[in-house]
């Protein structure tokens, strides 16, 4: 075996120019893939961070079945007990109680549905960012028991301005009709119309009064310390809180966001497949050429007693070595380039004006390196290289020694 490796290694350097370009192709392929995936991962992570910071938070805790219908009869019975139970979790940066319910909003002669959020203004401001997006007035403060904050689209639809008095009707938890009046103290604009058109905010105590949910809440919203730890945190909390409580991460709360993330990954996978194809063709060409050139040499080796299988292995070994060097170079190179860009960020502002797919899409992308991805990619590229060399390797083993030696050709 050792001899083969030695022979294979030396064979590579016999035509160092060809080997060089083969290694370059592999390295560039891997490097490019590392960068593309880091770009996609970076985009995804920023998108998730941004979108979950508007309203959904990273994780929400409700009574099982609440997310589906938002029924007031499925409110949490003892949210403070849950809060003390989970307070020890290290990955939680901040948590807050909320009441979320469908209501009927009425102003002048217009009546329409909305979703009311009863929040703790101080805690909420550490978890979500809507309070920073006020266009008129201000967000709620703890003293604003009869204040309401509405979205820009909803304000336009009802013709609301600061100081407008709106009526809120809702189903209360004791079966009665919840009814109360609120004064608009702020109008926010997030740019996401599914939020601006629908969500209105009052303080948690005001909501507890309206829905007869004193001492209770419909959910707990959580911000994790790191986005990557959300999945672990979710399963940990789920185990701890048991049946009867649903612990949902942002994927279940905003499925559209997960779809967007998956879409980006699918796009990257398509690029991956294309790069593999090109590298495979390149390696195939290189190895095939080197095999065809050495017909006579293989013929002599076989005449001297080298087995067919050994010839095949020799060729594959050559490709393996090329691949390994290429992968190492590509891996290191890709890592270096991507980390530099990861620190500096890729500024797309000039392109973003045309590509404004959604508001507040980050204009500067920071690629993110993931070790598991890099190892996987390196492994795959190496496998592609080896795979591409199989055809020429098998072909080499099929030469007839006598014909090969005499004519330098295959049959």
């Amino acid at each position, binding site marked *: 075996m050792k001899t083969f490796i030695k022979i294979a290694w030396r064979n590579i350097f016999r035509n160092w120019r060809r080997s060089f370009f083969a290694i370059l192709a592999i390295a560039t392929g891997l490097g490019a893939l590392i960068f593309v995936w880091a770009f996609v991962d970076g985009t995804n992570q920023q998108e998730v961070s941004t979108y979950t910071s508007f309203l959904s938070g990273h994780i929400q805790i409700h009574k099982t079945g609440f997310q589906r219908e938002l029924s007031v009869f499925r409110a949490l019975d003892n949210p403070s007990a849950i809060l003390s139970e989970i307070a020890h979790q290290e990955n939680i940066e901040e948590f807050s109680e909320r009441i979320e319910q469908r209501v009927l909003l009425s102003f002048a002669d217009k009546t329409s549905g909305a979703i009311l959020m009863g929040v703790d203004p101080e805690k909420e401001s550490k978890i979500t960012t809507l309070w920073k997006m006020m266009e008129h007035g201000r967000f709620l403060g703890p003293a604003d028991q009869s204040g309401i904050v509405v979205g820009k689209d909803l304000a336009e639809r009802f013709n609301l301005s600061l100081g407008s008095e709106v009526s809120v009707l809702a189903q209360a*938890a*004791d*079966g009665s009709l919840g009814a109360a009046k609120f004064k608009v103290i702020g109008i926010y604009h997030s740019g996401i119309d599914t939020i601006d058109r629908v969500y209105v905010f009052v303080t948690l105590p005001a909501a507890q009064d309206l829905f007869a949910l004193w001492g209770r809440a419909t959910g707990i919203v959580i911000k994790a310390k790191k986005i990557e730890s959300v999945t672990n945190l979710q399963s940990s909390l789920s185990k701890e809180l048991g049946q009867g409580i649903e612990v949902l991460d942002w994927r279940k709360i905003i499925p559209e966001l997960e779809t967007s993330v998956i879409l980006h990954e699918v796009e990257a996978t398509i690029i991956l497949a294309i790069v593999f194809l090109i590298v495979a063709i390149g390696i195939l060409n290189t190895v095939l050429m080197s095999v065809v050139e050495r017909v006579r040499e293989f013929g002599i080796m076989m005449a001297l007693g080298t087995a067919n299988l050994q010839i095949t292995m020799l060729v594959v070994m050559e490709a393996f070595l090329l691949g390994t060097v290429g992968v190492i170079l590509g891996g290191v190179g890709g890592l270096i380039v991507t980390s530099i860009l990861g620190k500096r960020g890729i500024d797309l502002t000039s392109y973003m004006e045309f590509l404004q797919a959604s508001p507040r899409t980050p204009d500067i992308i920071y690629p993110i390196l993931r070790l598991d991805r890099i190892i996987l990619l390196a492994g795959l590229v190496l496998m592609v290289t080896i795979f591409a060399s199989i055809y020429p390797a098998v072909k080499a083993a099929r030469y007839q020694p006598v014909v090969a030696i005499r004519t330098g050709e295959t049959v």
Partner: protein
Amino acid sequence: MKRIAIFLLLLFSLDSVFALTAYEMVKKSENLVRGNTNQGILEMTITTPYFTRTLKMHIWNKGLKKTFVRIFSPAKEAGIGSLKMGDEMWNYLPAIEKIIKIPPSMMMSAWMGSDFSNDDVVKESSIVEDYNHRILTEERLSGYDAYKIECIPKENAPVVWGKIYFWLRKSDHLPLKQEYYDEKGKLIKVLESIEVGSMGGRVIPILSEMRTIGKENSKTTLRVREMSFDVSIADSVFTLRHLQTLRAKE
């Protein structure tokens, strides 16, 4: 002598000719519990798997077209009122100081979250005038001899039910039970008189229970605490103005 005997015999047998028709029986039944006017205090207890709630209210009825209800307990809902005048119905919510008109499409929705619909409370449709009646059988129900009467809506009647079975007591036509069926013949609601007693000089059901089929853990009971009949009630009670103005009530 023979002539007198035959005459007397015929006289007694004429009694069956003058027996009441189904329509008349239902009309008598309604008159029994409504009178020309009635006013009193009702207690409605709503029971569901999620909550149990008791509403106490004053009610005034004048004829078939005027109804006024004012809730005075519990405190959270005190002041809420319902008014029916003619064919129109309104609710008043003091918490937001608004009068809400109930469109015909909402007449079958629950009144205050109970098993009674808006239509049930204000009697928008008349079981007497909007239906054709026919005696089906005579049965024994809750220990009384009763007639079972089938009520089918007249053409063009503003009624959602496909049919109603009405059990009333033979002796005084007191309503014992009503079963409400939809147009496909499926039983939807059942109203039963649980307790019968004397109130305002009449014997009426003083405790009734309304159940919705399919919601087996829920029911609404209605207890009559006070009721007086045929006392004159001013028309000014049945106005939007009164609906909006909370007078000092018991």
